[in-house]
C-alpha cells in the first residue's frame, strides 16, 4: 500500500498553517511539524509518502534531516522548500535524491506536481 501522508516540516508557523490546508483541498492527507526533531520523534515517519521540508531551520536543518533519514535508511521522497534563493544548494540536494527544490513563494501547480511526483515514487 502506498504511503499517502504528506508531512510538512517548517519552522514558519504560517507555512505550517497554510500548506496543509491547501493539500487537504486536493484530498491529500497532510500533517505539519515545526522542526526536524519533532518529525523524527513522531510516528509519521513510516506513513509519510512525501516530505515537504524547509531548508533553513533552527536546530537540525532540512539537508541535515535528509542525511539523517538516509542514515536511517528511511527512503522518503523529499520536496525542499526554501525562502532563500541559494542556487548552489539546489543541485546538491537534488543529487542526494530530493524530488524537487522549490523557492518560496511557489505556485499551487508547482507544489502539487512535486508532491504528486514524490508520491508516485513512494
Amino acid at each position, binding site marked *: 500500500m502506498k504511503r499517502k501522508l504528506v508531512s510538512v516540516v517548517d519552522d*514558519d508557523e*504560517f507555512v505550517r498553517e497554510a500548506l496543509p*490546508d491547501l493539500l487537504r483541498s*486536493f484530498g491529500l492527507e497532510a500533517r505539519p511539524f515545526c522542526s526536524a526533531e519533532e518529525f523524527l520523534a513522531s510516528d509519521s515517519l513510516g506513513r509519510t509518502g512525501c516530505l515537504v521540508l524547509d531548508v*533553513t531551520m533552527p536546530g537540525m536543518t532540512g539537508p541535515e534531516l535528509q542525511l539523517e533519514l538516509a542514515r536511517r535508511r528511511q527512503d522518503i521522497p523529499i520536496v525542499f522548500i526554501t*525562502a532563500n534563493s*541559494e542556487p548552489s544548494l539546489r543541485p546538491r540536494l537534488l543529487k542526494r535524491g530530493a524530488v524537487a527544490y522549490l*523557492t*518560496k513563494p511557489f505556485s*499551487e501547480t508547482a507544489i502539487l506536481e512535486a508532491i504528486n511526483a514524490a508520491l508516485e515514487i513512494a
Partner: protein
Amino acid sequence: MEIELSRLVDALPGLVWTTTPDGTSDFVNQRLREYCGLTLEQIRPNGWRIAIHPDDLPHAQASWYAFVAAGAPGDVDARLRRFDGVYRRFNIKTCPVTDASGRIVGWCGINTDIEERKLAEEALLAHQLASERAQSDAALKLGEAQLRRAYVHLAEAQRLSQTGSFTWDFSGDELFWSEELCRIFELDPATQIKIPLVRDFVHPQDLRNFDSTVEGAAAGLDIDLAYRIVTASGAVKHVRAVGHRVEYNADRPVFIGAVQDVTAAKIAEEALRAREAELEQAYAFLTEAQQLSSTGSFIWDALADEEIWSDELYRIFEVDPGTKINLPLVRQVVHPEDLPRVAAATQQAVAGEEPDYFFRIVTPAGVVKHMHCVAHRSAQITDRPMFIGAIQDVTEAKLAEEALSRARAELAHVTRVMALSALTASIAHEVNQPLASLVTNASTCVRMLAADPPNLEIAQTTAQRTIRDANRASDVIRRLRAMFARKQPASEPVDLAEATREVLALSASEFQRAGIVLRSDFADGLPSVRGDRIQLQQVILNLVLNATDAMRAVDGRPRNLLVATACDETGQVRLSVRDEGTGIKPQNLTRLFDAFYTTKSEGMGIGLSISRSIIQGHDGRLWAEANDDGPGATFSFSIPCDVAGSTEPLQKDA
C-alpha cells in the same frame, strides 16, 4: 714896606710873608723868621727853600710857580723845618696883591701849622682802619665758617646725588677730584689723577666715545658723555660726565664739571625698558596669536554698555577700527536668527554665568561668519559687572565640520547599504516567507470558492490569512526601506529596545543561517533616547553582524548571542551585544575602531569606525571588552536618555 706896617705884620699872630710880583721873597715876618730860626737876609730872595722838607720841595715849588704863572690864589701843604730842626706840617696859602688898576704888584701868603690837625686826622684814620680791619676780620671768620658749612653741604649733596665734581686743567692735565668722585671710582682721594688714569677705568666699549670727548674738550667743546667704568673691585658703573670750559683764563683751558653715578638709574631704566620690551613683545605675540587663531578679545562694561575690542575683533567683524562699540551696534551685525541666542547669553552674563556659545554674524559685505564666544566676569573689577571675553571666527571650522558631517552621513549611508547587502539573503527570506503562505492561502481560498458547493468558511479564513501575510511582507519592506533611506540625520525620541527588535527581526534568518542562538534582554521602562533612529539601528546592525561573523568559525560549543539594553547609574541608556566568538586580542582592542582596520577577510574596516562616530554624534560612547567569564567579546554603547522626551509617549513612526 713902611716900618709901621712891618712892625704890624711882625706882630701878627701868624706866619706871614710877601714876594715880588715874580715870586721872589721880599719879606718874612718875625714869627716866621723865629719859627725857622733864619734871618731875613738868609731867606731873601730864595733862601726859603731850605726851610721846606726836601721831599715836599719839588711839589711845593711847582705849585708856587703855577700860582704865580696863573696869577691866581692857591694853597699847598708842605713840611717846614723849625728852628730846632723839627719839621711840622703847614698849609701854605697865597694870593696876589694888586693895585688900583688890577695889576699884580706882589704876593702875600700865610702859613698855617696843621701838624696837630694832621696828627688828629691820622689818629682818626688809624682808628678807622683798625676798626675796619677788625670788621673785615670778623667777616672773614664768618665767611670761613659759612664756607666750611657749604663745603660740608656740598660734600653731602655730592654723596646723596652720587655726583662728584672735578676741575681739569687741560694744559697741564691736572685733575682735581672731589671726594665723592674718588669714591665713585673707588680711588684713594690722595691719588694724583690724570686723564690716562681715568681712561684705564673706562669700559672698553666706551673708549672711543671717551677719547673723542677728550679730543673735543681740547678744542674747547663742552663735555657731556655717558660711559661705563670698571672699578678695581670689578664693578661696572654707569656714569655721566658733564663739564664746560671756564672762560677766565683764555690761554689756559680749564674745565669744571660733574660726574654722576647713574648705575642705579641705568639699571632701573634698563629693567623698565626690558619690561616695556617684554610687554611690547607679549602684546605683539598676543596680536599675532589673535591673527593666527582668528580670535579677537573684548572687554564689556555691562552697566555703561561700552565695549573695547582688540584689532583682530574689528577685522573679524569688518567694522572700522576705532568705531565705538556697544550692544545696539553688535545687534546690527549679528545674524537675525541668532539674536535671541546672543540676547540670552548677554542675560546669562549679567546674571553671573559664563556664557559659551556660537552665533553668526553678517558682515557689511553680506558674508555670513560663524562665531564662538566665551566670556567671564572679571574678578579684578568688583564694583561693576565687567566682562572679558574672546570671540573666535570658526567659519572655516564650521564649514569644514558641515562638509565632514555630510561626508560622514554619506559614508554612513554607504556602509549601511553595504551592511544591508550582507543581509540580502536574510531579507529575501523574511519577505518570501509571508509571500509563500500568502500564495498558498490564496490558492486554497480560490479552490474553496470553486468547490461545489463552495466552502465559504475555509475560503474566508484563508482570505483573511492572505491579508495577514501581505501585511507581514509589507512590514519587512517598510523596515528595509527605512534602513536604506538616505535622509538628513534626525533628532527625535527613539525607543532603543524597539529599534533593536526591528534590527533583530531583519537579521533573524541570518542568525539562523549562521547557527546563532539569539537571546535578548530588554530592561523594562527604559527611557527613550534622543537621536537618529536609522543611524542607531545601523550601529546595532553592525554590532550584531560583527558578533555573528565572530561566531561563524566556532565549533563544538553554542553560538550564543545576547543583546541587552539597560539604564545605567548616570542616566544613560546602554545597549550591549555579547558574542561567544573568537574574541579580541588585547593588542587589537584599541585599534578596533580605527578606520580601515579589519580582521575580516572581506571587511572594509569602516563599520566600527562609522559606528563610533555615530555614537559620538549622539554624545555617547562605544567600546569593546573581552568577556571575563567566557570566550568572546562584548560591544556596548551608551547614550544619554532623552530628558525632554522621556515623559512623553514615544512617537511611533509610520
